């Protein structure tokens, strides 16, 4: 049986193509002049440059963290190019018709038909290609509702006060090594502002793609949901197949004002490297949201890609009665390593958080859940529920759970449940006896295991996530 499953797992990465697009890429290396050049390219205000430089100087003093349950060779930060943009982006297109058709074909190959999305799906898309945001669809409709959804570089020009007020307010530029690096060199990302009392009329979505060789991607996303507003946001990511490792160090900051709700979903499918662990993306990401009174922040992530993942989308439950949720599916196979989880920081009274984590390990991979639940002294009546399930496929992979619970309030309640199970011979045999092949059977069993998380995804993306898992698990069954 395990042999069949192994074959089923030896599946090629489908988004691994490279697009021939003329681009302008900085030579590799990082110093203050590179940061000045990035800032100048983006025509940024002076304060932004200063902010970047401060972040860079802090970063120089910091040490790369090594506490995660992952193992990778030392990264040479001077061998990375910190800026790459498709050439045709110099005069930013005003509509899709002006976008390089090759670029549009790239997105179509990825299953993101921008044209169609604009017309039919009712999903507004911001597409970030290497370092720049390529196109944001559906803008006029969003503008009618007063919603701002644009590349962060553009927001810096049009709404500098908003950006200045909130950037770094949730993830300070010295928060950690990778966040500091991102703060110094971030090139683009999405900016969202939902006005008071507004329900964003559609799902907002960003697709990130790393195309050029030896480039890093450092996007920065900032979402502000003003009082009583609601927004659902999804990001998807892919990269070409390459032998070298590429670095992705993003920062996402969410601000949910009183009574606001932010739902943030991620489908991450960066190139994971080949079966021997050659190549693949290092996904070192800092995501955090701050929830004010009665606000709610919900993170849902489906992580199937990347060679190494280091990622803990977190909630600071600052306001009374605020709610934090984290729903995660992390699938590792081949030589992939993931150390992912969340932090729920309960500050306000009667704050509630839910953590549902599903880790699936196959092949020679290692999958760790790392989560912190912290009940502060003022968090009277706060509650957390954590469920952490691991599924093992085959006998060469590992699943690890590192829960940290800190309670400084006697009235707070913390629950933690954890299970580990295997895809059993009996389950596979039942499926096969009913006419299903091994691939279908494994993917069905794994999908069932993840059901609690998938039902949290927006409808169309739940289907996408299910398919992605299927693709990640399928193979050439002999």
């Amino acid at each position, binding site marked *: *049986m395990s042999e069949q499953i192994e074959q089923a797992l030896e599946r090629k990465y489908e988004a691994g193509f490279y697009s021939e697009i003329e681009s302008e890429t900085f030579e590799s290396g990082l110093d203050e002049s590179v940061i000045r050049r990035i800032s100048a390219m983006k025509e940024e205000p002076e304060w932004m440059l200063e902010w970047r430089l401060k972040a860079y100087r802090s970063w120089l003093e910091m040490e790369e963290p090594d506490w995660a349950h992952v193992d990778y060779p030392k990264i040479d930060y001077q061998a990375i190019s910190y800026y790459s943009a498709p050439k045709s982006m110099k005069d930013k297109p005003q509509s899709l018709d002006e976008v390089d058709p090759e670029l549009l074909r790239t997105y179509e190959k990825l299953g993101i038909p921008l044209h169609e999305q604009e017309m039919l799906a009712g999903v507004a898309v911001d597409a970030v290609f290497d370092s720049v945001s390529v196109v944001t669809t559906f803008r006029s409709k969003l503008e009618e509702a007063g919603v701002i959804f644009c590349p962060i570089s553009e927001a810096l020009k049009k709404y500098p006060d908003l950006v200045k007020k909130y950037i770094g307010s949730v993830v300070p530029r010295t928060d950690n090594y990778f966040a500091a690096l991102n703060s110094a060199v971030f090139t683009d990302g999405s900016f969202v502002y939902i006005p008071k009392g507004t329900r964003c009329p559609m799902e907002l979505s960003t697709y990130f793609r790393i195309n050029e060789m030896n480039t890093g991607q450092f996007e920065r996303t900032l979402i502000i949901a003003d009082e009583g507003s609601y927004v659902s946001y999804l990001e998807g990511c892919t990269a070409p197949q390459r032998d070298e490792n590429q670095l992705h160090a993003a920062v996402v900051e969410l601000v949910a004002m009183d009574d606001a709700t932010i739902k943030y979903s991620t489908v991450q499918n960066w190139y994971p490297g080949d079966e021997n662990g050659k190549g693949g993306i290092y996904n070192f990401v800092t995501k955090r949201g701050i929830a004010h009174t009665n606000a709610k922040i919900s993170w849902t992530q489906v992580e199937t890609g990347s060679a190494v993942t280091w990622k803990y989308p977190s909630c600071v439950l600052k306001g009374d009665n605020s709610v934090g949720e984290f729903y995660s599916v992390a699938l590792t196979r081949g030589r992939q390593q993931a150390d992912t989880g969340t932090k729920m920081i309960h500050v306000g009274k009667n704050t509630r958080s839910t953590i549902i984590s599903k880790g699936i390990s196959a092949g020679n991979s290692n999958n760790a859940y790392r989560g912190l639940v912290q009940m502060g002294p003022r968090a009277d009546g706060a509650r957390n529920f954590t469920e952490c399930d691991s599924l093992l496929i085959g006998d060469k992979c590992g699943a690890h759970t590192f829960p940290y619970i800190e309670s400084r309030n006697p009235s707070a309640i913390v629950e933690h449940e954890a299970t580990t199970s295997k895809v*059993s*011979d*009996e*389950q596979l*045999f*039942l*499926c*096969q*006896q*009913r*006419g*299903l*092949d*091994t691939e*279908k059977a494994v993917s*069905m*069993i794994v*999908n*069932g*295991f*993840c*059901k*609690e998380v998938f039902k949290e995804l927006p409808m169309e993306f739940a289907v996408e996530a299910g398919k992605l898992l299927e693709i990640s698990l399928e193979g050439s069954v002999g």
Partner: protein
Amino acid sequence: MLSIKNLHASVEEKNIIKGLNLEVKPGEVHAIMGPNGAGKSTLGYVLSGRDGYEVSEGEATLNGKNLLELDVEERAREGLFLAFQYPVEIPGVSNMEFMKESVNAMREQHGKEPLTAAEFLKKAKEACKQVQLPLDFLKRGVNEGFSGGEKKRNEIMQMILLEPSLCILDESDSGLDVDALQVVADGVNSQRDGERSFIVVTHYQRLLDYIKPDFVHILADGKIVKSGDASLALDVEKSGYAFLGKEYAEGEA
């Protein structure tokens, strides 16, 4: 239909089936009885191709196809259905979804279009009613939290939906009360159409009061040692397996 000739099979290098012969013609119901450890369940697993069950000698064909050359799912698609003695749970996968995939895999094999969700739902509801399970069982995870009797009825529901040509029922009566037994038997009897064949593996004669066999075979030590009509099962009920020899005389009925 099914033809087994001089079949030898082992599990973990232990010989369990030792020269078994069996011919099943379309529409026939064959009961296989025998003492514990005779190889009754093994036969079902060997025929369906379960991993770890090695055939060392002999042949088995279904509708002229050599079963032993086929993968588990290929045998299933050729119309071989095994109703499990202990059906396993698949958490989070709804019964509905599971059976729809399964039914469509069979249809594809026969060059038929897959059923639409609406078409399938109609069939599934009928089958569900037939085995007297509440309709919400279609939405629940496969066997997830089902009682023993519900699991057995769920197996029969799958059999009804899949329309196999050969059904092997592996102790489908074990652990059932009389009412549940009646439901299972009714389900099986409703599928007897003169074409579909059944192998009913059971430890007790009781089931055969409900599902009338055309032939009864006694399996002992990996071979069929005695065959007869339904009356043979009654003999076993009365006097146990004593006729097999001293080692079977006690503790069996």
